């Protein structure tokens, strides 16, 4: 079934299954998703789920409901749409893209722990957890099985690196050895680069405007990064390459 991933400041807090036809979001305790923060109205929004379609509706909240930076009244949720509620983010993951059942806490740990060895030695557990949350590929049941065996081979065999091209940090390099690297400025524009067995992907996470990839705005989907791609995020240009 579809689910939401609740995060704050780019860090995952919990997963919420859209297991009811009607899921209310708000500050008061009777809500299915309760967030006790003053930026959120008592009854803020509601998500109606029918089969695999989810509809988000603002309930005349004080601060409004935003999806990918845009205010909405009624909105059909698309894969990887991010609903903003004060400092919290809810990312919508439709059913087909869930290739493993790992919990967000396992995502945090993988994010926090930098692999210390050459990529070939990273084991399946760490490799599988990367696919949760930012995998936008639609998988049929038989494809799912092949993805599981693919992730068992470990991470991308080459190490991705971004080199900063502009600003005060120009020339600096950032090794993308973690499974999830967050780039940008929280509150302005944030993107995440995920490391998967078959390569690196960039996904927009936060911000009203989208980062640029080779001069073009990326949307909310994950985009594969290729050698010498230039990323423009929060005003800083950087180049991606593999070593």
């Amino acid at each position, binding site marked *: 079934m579809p689910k939401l991933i609740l995060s704050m400041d780019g860090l995952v807090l*919990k997963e919420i299954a859209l297991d009811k036809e009607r899921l209310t979001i708000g500050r008061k305790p009777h809500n299915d998703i309760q967030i*006790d923060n003053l930026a959120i109205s008592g009854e803020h929004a509601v998500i109606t789920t029918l089969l695999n379609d989810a509809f988000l509706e603002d309930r005349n909240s004080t601060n409004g409901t935003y999806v990918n930076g845009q205010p909405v009244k009624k909105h059909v949720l698309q894969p990887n749409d991010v609903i903003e509620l004060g400092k919290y983010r809810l990312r919508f993951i439709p059913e087909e893209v869930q290739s493993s059942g790992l919990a967000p*806490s*396992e995502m945090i*740990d993988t994010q*926090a722990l930098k*692999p*210390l060895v050459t990529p070939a030695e990273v084991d399946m557990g760490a490799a599988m957890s990367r696919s949760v949350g930012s995998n936008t590929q639609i998988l049929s049941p038989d494809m799912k099985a092949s993805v599981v065996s693919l992730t068992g081979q470990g991470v991308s065999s080459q190490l991705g690196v971004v080199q900063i091209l502009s600003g005060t940090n120009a020339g600096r390099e950032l090794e993308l050895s973690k499974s999830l690297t967050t780039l940008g400025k929280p509150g302005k524009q944030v993107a995440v680069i995920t490391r998967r067995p078959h390569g690196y992907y960039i996904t927009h996470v936060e911000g009203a405007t989208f980062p640029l990839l080779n001069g073009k705005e990326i949307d909310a989907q994950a985009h594969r990064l290729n050698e010498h791609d230039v990323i423009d995020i929060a005003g800083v240009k950087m180049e991606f390459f593999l070593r």
Partner: protein
Amino acid sequence: MAGVLPDGVSKVEPLVPGSPAIDFGHCSDVGRVRVRNEDALHIDAQGHFVALADGMGGYRGGDVAAGLAVALVDRALDQMEEPGSLEATARLLMFTIMDINRQIYSTGREIPSLSGMGSTLVVAVFIGDKVLSAHVGDSRLYRLREGVLEQLTRDHTMLQEQVDAGLIDVEEARHMSYRGLLTRGLGVGEEVMPDLGCHEALPGDLFLLCSDGLTDMVGDEMIARLMGSGEGVQAIAEALVAEANRCGGRDNVSAIVARLVV
């Protein structure tokens, strides 16, 4: 933290000419009693800093709190100018940890299923011939030099306060059953004051960051013996965890071992 961790040693080349290179090893295990590993570790090879957090409270909350703590430390220190001065880094550590506390505290209050979540934290930053420590709670930093093990952080626990006040002696304390009562933790109150320390870090020194899952099971003499074995840092970290499990493994057990290369 669930899932198997990649094993291995990361050797860090010195950023500051004349600084020692550092080898890091780590091991974290759920132990033999608990269902979930709520310890979180971070080793930042480029920035010469390491962090360890022991999460507690609520369904899955410990996981989230410990993970938040180390991720936010990483984020703050990653943005630091290199090489930093001791004073600037100490200030940054202080304010970062106070801020992390507020985030864990407020998130725990705002998200019902994370209610009551908290964590300890111990951070070590290697700068030149010094190591800066910052901690909240009872996860510890030790230094082994020429076979002598020294605990560099003082636990924020009821027990330690009683020992400091002279109410009980150190030997009695080791056998008390309520060892885990924290007087300071991340996410417990609106504000928290971390303790900061600055210690010598010379080539040949070994440092250990660990959660109480290690020190509650394994005594200092055995820790000193395992650290002084001459083995590589990864082997030492794994041996420490194995020893904790051999002695009962009643809690999650985690260790980060750092050796300043001669």
